[in-house]
């Protein structure tokens, strides 16, 4: 199950969606808007999406997760638009018979999502400045001076 939305993500419903009598373990990951990165204070975030391709990429991600790991349920939700401090930007829920696979699958999904799903994050700082963040694995993108420490 995948969801690309401009509304708040209901992580409880996402978790319930993967619970199953065949599973002994559920792992939920939430990415949330962090206020401070070192001394830099974020005021709010803007996520831009290429919706059609992002939905296709999220569906591919779910399918590949099911191929790579022994999972029962997989649910991925990503929000876009304006997000405030503390808001959930992304949620990944997986269930598996055993916990090692649940942790490994959850981590693989969020790591791969950050490299493959066409969504971009723009930080708006309290000093009025704004910048598109650099992704973790591709230093030197179009603007700003982010580095891997900026990522959650």
């Amino acid at each position, binding site marked *: 199950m995948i969801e690309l939305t401009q509304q708040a993500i209901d992580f409880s419903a996402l978790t319930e969606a993967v619970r199953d009598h065949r599973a002994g373990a559920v792992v939920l990951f939430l990415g949330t808007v962090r206020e401070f990165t070192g001394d830099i204070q974020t005021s709010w975030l803007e*996520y831009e999406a*290429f919706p059609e391709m992002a939905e296709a990429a999220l569906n591919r991600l779910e399918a590949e997760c099911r191929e790579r790991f022994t999972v029962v349920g997989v649910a991925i939700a990503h929000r876009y638009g304006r997000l405030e401090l503390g808001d959930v930007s*992304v949620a990944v829920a997986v269930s598996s018979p055993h916990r090692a696979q649940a942790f490994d699958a959850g981590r693989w999904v969020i790591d791969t999502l950050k490299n493959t799903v*066409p969504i*971009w994050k723009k930080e708006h700082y309290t000093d009025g400045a704004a910048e598109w963040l650099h992704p973790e694995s*591709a230093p030197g*993108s*179009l603007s700003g001076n982010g580095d891997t420490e900026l*990522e*959650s």
Partner: protein
Amino acid sequence: MKLSVLLFAAAREIACRDSIDIDVPDSGTVAQARMSLFEAVPALESSAATLLWAVNNEFANEERILRESDVVACFPPVSGG
């Protein structure tokens, strides 16, 4: 043939528009679309090395051959999550 290229994030902001029409030879490649894009928006050329391309919702490399019905997009490295 005429193609419309969707632009996102910093690429959209630099070009001041969310899509741009370009000319590409029939059976032209992504590499040729890129040259046409940079002619239309020279400010994007300094980011050439990091810009990514997608055709019909999948990432595409420079050799990918384009058709008039393709949905083509150009954008910086993704940074969601």
